[in-house]
């Protein structure tokens, strides 16, 4: 049918036929899968959701006299030295002076061109005698600035609810007791990993659009669990594949980066991640026809704060999008946490970048590891024998 090379050739010659995931579903509904797979080359898929596994990596030039960073902070947010003048900042760590200012705010401020305050204590050795250093810097003063999203894409998520008597503030929002409400968190039919559920086109080395910048997938990410049970359409019924990506932040658009704060949980980063899926063959075209009524997820009770939580069975995202879902026979209010509006806009943005020849596809260098098992971390007390 089509190869990556042919698709990139079409992009160069302005002959590319690209649709967003939303447009693709409508196209298939109207004109059928055959016409879709023969006429359309690429479909853009995206997710604008909350991230906690986000690490900002900044590489500075050397000071005079030279310094070897020992303790560093940026705008009061503690940074981890990773070399003489390199630092890593977690997007979810807060400033010592203001808990509402986080590493995610640093990312946003850098993109907005603001000046940030760097404070460093040096190791003070013969070659690196500089003991203390302070300066103001902005994105232009940095040699390299990268973002590692270790869970840049999540294939699926759960529905969170709470059967206890008291409200719970969780990373899935405020869960009102006695199953009064519930939340779900996925861009579902727009999500790249829902549209390519077995990673037939996505792999290590795939180009990924992150907030307007072109990054790369480096492998599977945090909590990657490819063994999750799948429904009859091949979609996992809970969290499954995750992908880790690295991206240069210098060409990001701040519009797609939002530092957030979850009540009683802490700072998070909302950022847009999109992938262009090539319609290589009929099989991939079939996968791209998936809609919310064919995507299932699992309802999880957060009342017990343990690793394994009780569940209330499964439901489809089509049900969830009606705002009411039946949990334990009780009609329960339900709402999303992932912005569909921003996900759709991100699909459009990537589509335009492809049409304007600013984004080309890349063939994976190797496949995503689908054989790994999700490990647990258990306490081991006493001496290791």
């Amino acid at each position, binding site marked *: 049918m089509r190869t990556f090379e042919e698709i990139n050739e079409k992009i160069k010659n302005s002959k590319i036929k690209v649709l967003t995931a939303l447009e693709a579903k409508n196209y298939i509904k109207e004109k059928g899968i055959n016409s879709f797979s023969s006429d359309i080359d690429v479909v853009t898929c995206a997710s*604008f959701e*909350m991230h906690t596994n986000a690490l900002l990596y900044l590489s500075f030039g050397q000071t005079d006299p030279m310094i070897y960073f020992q303790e560093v902070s940026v705008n009061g947010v503690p940074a981890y030295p990773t070399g003489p003048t390199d630092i890593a900042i977690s997007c979810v760590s807060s400033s010592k002076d203001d808990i509402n200012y986080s590493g995610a705010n640093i990312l946003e401020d850098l993109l907005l061109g603001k000046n940030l305050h760097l404070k460093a204590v040096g190791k003070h050795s013969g070659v690196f005698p500089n003991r203390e250093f302070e300066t103001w810097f902005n994105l232009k003063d940095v040699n390299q600035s990268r973002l590692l999203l270790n869970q840049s894409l999540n294939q699926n998520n759960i529905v969170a609810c709470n059967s206890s008597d008291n409200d719970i503030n969780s990373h899935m*929002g*405020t869960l*009102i007791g*006695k199953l*009064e*409400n*519930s*939340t779900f968190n996925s861009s579902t039919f727009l999500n790249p990993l829902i549209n390519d559920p077995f990673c037939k086109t996505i792999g290590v080395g795939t180009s990924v659009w992150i907030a307007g910048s072109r990054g790369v997938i480096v492998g599977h990410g945090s909590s990657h669990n490819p063994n999750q049970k799948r429904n009859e359409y091949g979609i996992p019924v809970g969290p499954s594949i995750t992908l880790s990506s690295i991206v240069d932040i210098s060409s990001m658009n701040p519009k797609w980066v*939002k*530092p*957030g*704060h*979850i*009540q009683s949980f802490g700072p*998070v980063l*909302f950022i847009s991640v999109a992938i262009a899926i090539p319609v290589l063959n009929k099989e991939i075209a079939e996968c791209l026809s998936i809609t919310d009524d064919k995507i299932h997820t699992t309802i999880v009770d957060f009342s017990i704060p343990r690793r394994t939580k009780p569940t209330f069975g499964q439901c489809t995202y089509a049900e969830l999008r009606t*705002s009411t879902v039946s949990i334990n026979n009780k009609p329960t*209010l*339900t*709402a*999303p*946490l*992932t*912005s*569909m*509006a*921003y996900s*759709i806009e991100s699909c459009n943005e990537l589509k335009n970048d492809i049409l304007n020849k600013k984004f080309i596809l890349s063939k994976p260098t190797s496949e995503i590891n689908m054989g790994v098992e999700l490990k647990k971390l258990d306490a081991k007390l006493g001496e290791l024998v």
Partner: protein
Amino acid sequence: MTKKSKKEKKVELDKLNESLSFRTKRRVVLEFPPNVVQTPITYMLAKEYDIISNILRAEIAPEESGKLVLEMDGLSDRLDEAIEKIRGYGIEVTEIARKVAFDMDKCMHCGACISVCLAGALKLDENYHLQFIEPKCTVCEMCVPTCPVDAVTIDI
């Protein structure tokens, strides 16, 4: 407040769900003429109307007219009844209008606020944009701390 059994509470909760009237907060200014200053308003509100009151400001001196700024937390129709009752004592009641305001430039349409709006004042439209149906809003303020990007504020 008297202690209620679990069953009684459950019945009450079901009733509450049925009538779709949820607990809401209202702020009022009470102006007392000199002779009624001693009226134990908050006790009466709790006992007769199941209203939790929170005194925000008090300017009351014995034998003089006084002023009390009160936040009342209760079911919407009970609040109306209670205000009538207070007026019956010859106390002047002025409600302070409170509103929630959504900053649509900040809003990213995630939907987190919708999940706590039991009054049904928030929803996504067909383009997945947040929609605020103000007439349904009971100003319960649950959505305010829920928004991750501080797009919801209280307007007094």
